[in-house]
């Protein structure tokens, strides 16, 4: 496939960005990927620079006063964040929250975490087990629809076991 940017070289990197439900395909050759700073030494892929490259689009809307924002812990400024596409410390997520949320929606299509939760966060352990059960129930439906009854029976046992563990330990349970 030809590189969609220079229309000369063979494309070696393929991905799509979905922004506001609009999907843009990228098929890039190596030198274009390097020019766009999304490929570094040893051919490592740095998608974050593409995101940093998206920042100029957003800049005209941002009032000048906003750029005075700086993280009280690491000192990173809003401008610094836009230039590098990187945050300085965990606290930055709070400092730049208002800028981050739209950015996360741009990158990931949503700004809400639905994955793993650390065990130590109170109900974290139980929370993860509940998610595990949900996943097993999905598997169970799939197994039954494909008439794999042996697998279904096995999954059902797993669900029962986790449910009884959750009942007996109350909440946190490390596997």
């Amino acid at each position: 496939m030809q590189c969609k940017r220079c229309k000369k070289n063979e494309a070696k990197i393929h991905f799509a960005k979905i922004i506001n439900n609009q999907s843009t395909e990228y098929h890039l050759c190596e030198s274009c990927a390097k020019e766009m700073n999304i490929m570094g030494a040893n051919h490592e892929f740095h998608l974050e620079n593409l995101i940093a490259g998206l920042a100029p689009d957003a800049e005209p809307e941002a009032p000048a006063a906003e750029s005075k924002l700086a993280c009280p812990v690491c000192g990173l400024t809003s401008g610094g964040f836009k230039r590098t596409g990187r945050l300085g410390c965990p606290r930055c997520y709070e400092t730049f929250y208002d800028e981050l949320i739209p950015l996360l929606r741009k990158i990931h299509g949503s700004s809400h975490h639905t994955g793993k939760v650390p065990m130590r966060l109170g109900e974290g352990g139980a929370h993860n087990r509940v998610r595990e059960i949900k996943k097993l129930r999905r598997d169970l439906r799939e197994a039954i629809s494909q008439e794999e009854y042996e697998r279904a029976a096995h999954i059902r046992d797993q669900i029962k076991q986790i449910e009884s563990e959750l009942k007996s330990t109350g909440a946190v349970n490390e596997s």
Partner: protein
Amino acid sequence: MTLPLNMENTGPWMRADGAPDGDVVVSSRVRLARNLAQHAFPHVANDTALRAVRQAVSDAAERSKMLKNAHVIQIEKLSDIEKQVLVERHLINQRLIESKLGSVIVERDEALSVMVNEEDHLRIQAMEPGLAMIDTWRVVDSLDNDLEATLDYAFRPDIGYCTACPTNVGTGMRASVLVHLPGLVETKQIDKVLKAVSHLGLAVRGFYGEGTEPMSNFFQISNQITLSRGEEEIVDNIEKITRQIASKEREARKWMYSEDHLHVEDTIFRAWGILRHARLLSSKEAMSHVSALRLAVYYKLIHDITTQMLNELFVLIQPAHLCVSSGKDLQAEERDVARAELIRTRLRMKTA
């Protein structure tokens, strides 16, 4: 410092028998990005903080049963060649080499490792041969739980694990498979497949050996989005899509053989001849012939070789490995000599 690794062979994890879908899928890898709540991210942190992070992670690793045979390797103590060896074994990357106070904790079978002070404080990694996304995730998930028992991770319930770059936030998970698709390349269906896959929220790129040209038939497929989907959903999705690609690849291989078996066999047996007799082999030439031999295993044309042997060769014939096993810094032509010799020896060994 000498690396506490067996340089005669690759990591033991690569040598396991019967990798699922191993005819098409070389390996599965899952990496989790984690940071400690009380320190700045590595690119901002000062030396004191970086040292504290490194110590805290080493201590946590020491308490994990999963890392009970692990070595802690401090990157700044290694020679350039030793660093490159770790890159060739997929244990570290360029960014960790550039980090001032980085380390890598490597479990003995090399399937499990933790990079410390790369872009994030921790990059926890698990690898498995073949298509084993879900198992690989389970392993890395348990190690993450182990480490979390000691470490205080930066996490927010709304957006998940905090990472230096917002592209990794949420699950912090990057899951990938390395696939070998000579059939789809040869039958010119590869563009269609690459387009389809990129629209499914996955990124695909050529896979690089030595040099600047990607190895034409190898591709790495990984998730692009780390937030708003659960880990199981992400790995499950990659596994399902990869399984579909693998079945398309097999169809293409079958079609190629039925259409023109003479041409297919000729390419394979030429590769076999060259690899067993050549005196000088560039990385590019060697890689393309080794790739042809993977097909020989698939078509059951040559019985003395296995896919695992070939997967290992891909690692062992890279420059830093050649230098370390010959005990000196080799120039380009000397490397070609050493590479040809290593391949000749390996391909004459009978499999057990």
